[in-house]
């Protein structure tokens, strides 16, 4: 996973349990590795661009902490640029599925 992808996953995981957090990260990492090359390349490119943009915002003091990143992701998800919407949706789906499946397994 690229550094920004790791940041996105860390921001989106709701649980504070380190075991859950690392399991979710491992699942997302495996899923990204397993993607078709052209899709992985597209996601990686977007991660670089959006990560650069996020770093610039952070340097300007306009993106502080996980909550701010989650809010930024939400604005991208509902924004006008299709590929950015798809990027957020792809990352979010992986995190949400993994975290809830893990929560379900632990509850059982």
């Amino acid at each position, binding site marked *: 996973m690229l550094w920004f992808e790791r940041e996105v996953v860390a921001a989106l995981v709701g649980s504070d349990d380190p075991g859950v957090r690392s399991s979710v990260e491992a*699942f997302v990492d*495996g*899923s990204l590795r*397993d*993607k*078709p*090359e*052209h*899709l992985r390349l597209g996601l990686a490119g977007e991660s670089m661009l959006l990560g650069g943009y996020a770093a610039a915002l952070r340097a300007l003091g306009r993106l502080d902490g996980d909550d701010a990143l989650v809010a930024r992701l*939400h604005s991208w*998800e*509902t924004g006008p640029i*299709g590929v950015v*919407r*798809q990027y957020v*949706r*792809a990352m*979010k*789906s*992986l995190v*949400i*599925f*993994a*975290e*809830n*499946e*893990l*929560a*379900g*397994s632990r509850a059982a």
Partner: protein
Amino acid sequence: MGTLDTEILVIGSGAGGGITAARLADAGRRVTVVEEGPWVDADAHEPFSLEEMVTKYRHHGASLALGNPNIAYAEGRCVGGSTEVNSGLYHRLPDSLAADWEARYAIDGFTPEELGRYADRVERDLGVSTLPGAPPPSSAMLERGATKLGWRNVEFARVFRYDAAGRGTKQTMSRTMLPRALGAGATIVADCRVQRLLRQGDRVVGVRARRRHPGGAVERLVIRADHVFVCAGAVETPALLQRSGIRRNAGNGLKMHPTVKIAARFPHPIDHGDVPMHRVTEFAPSLTIGGSASRRGHIAMALADTGLPFDDALADWQNISVYYAAIRSDGSGRVLAIPGLASPVVTYKLTDGDLSRLARGIVHLGELLLAAGATELHPSILGGPVVRRADELGAWWDALTRSRANVMTVHLTSTVRMGEDRHRTGADSFGRVWDHRNLRVNDASLLPDAPGVNPQAAIMAIAARNCDQFLAS
């Protein structure tokens, strides 16, 4: 580099490959099956779980057909293929569709009677049945909603056998046809990806493959064969043909059942261990309504599709189940193998008519779920809105646009169509690839169109029919 020799090589072990291997091995032929994915014990993981996604699905279950909108799809990649991961629903190809395809694609001997005979045999071999008792609540909701609205609905049969206590076991290929093939002398090589076919003139003399061993070592293999059946599914089959230099009508004309979903909240608990068996057929074959896998992870993903806050609903996930509306599509797509890339690029173009049908589908599904007693509906539309009353459903007509629709599918077909019309097909009436004497396709790729119902019954019957024709020839 290792070498293997066989009389018949079957590439892929799903609905098409499993049937092919068993029938040819039963006939005394020397059969080798190669499967790209691993051999996973059918009972090793809970159905539709995270672990199953990791071990049995291609791309962790997150593949994508590019288009506007993109369409997510999932397919199995393990011994037994998608039969290991699907819901087991079984629906014979409708007679009207068989007759239509026979006429439109000039398919020899593709009559409802002939297909019916093969379907009878497949059903006897596998075990196809309905539930021995009452349906679970998730399925009963479909029946209840449809009955209230006066819509036709039916409990679909599944490829399941039930014991005296009513416990069902899905009759996947790894539990049925593949053990049968092994018993008749076949060999199955798992974790073995075929890279290309080796051709000499109008014959295929074998394949080049890479086999992963348990320690991670990769062995290069050449497998020589007198006859090759490619049964790798509607995406990988045309990709393999293209990688091997066979491009004529291979990969174009991809068809699917585009699907939209609703996470429906009820005032009572719903089961989550199985997929609902009821289907609403009032609008079939252009539109079918049914239920999806609804583990906690699926429910959370479906709730998240709106992009709206969903913590309150998720806290009540035990009362939520996911349902779908699937359409027959006017659109089509392509599978394109790119040199140097292991995975093909898949594209699909939804038509405006398709979008309109999807909108109609999600509104009808909403009507049905409210009639069944649902109190809150979360559609797979970015921005929603979440609906609680029937008079609010109209908002979805305008909301389901190309940029806001979340569309997915699990049925992909038609990338190497069969028939005698050489301009429109990649294989003859029995799956023999044009201009190749000993190369056949025998999987979902052959279906001339998406059938509007779960395609595995049609795939199995056609595969059995093509095997008999091969043996007779």
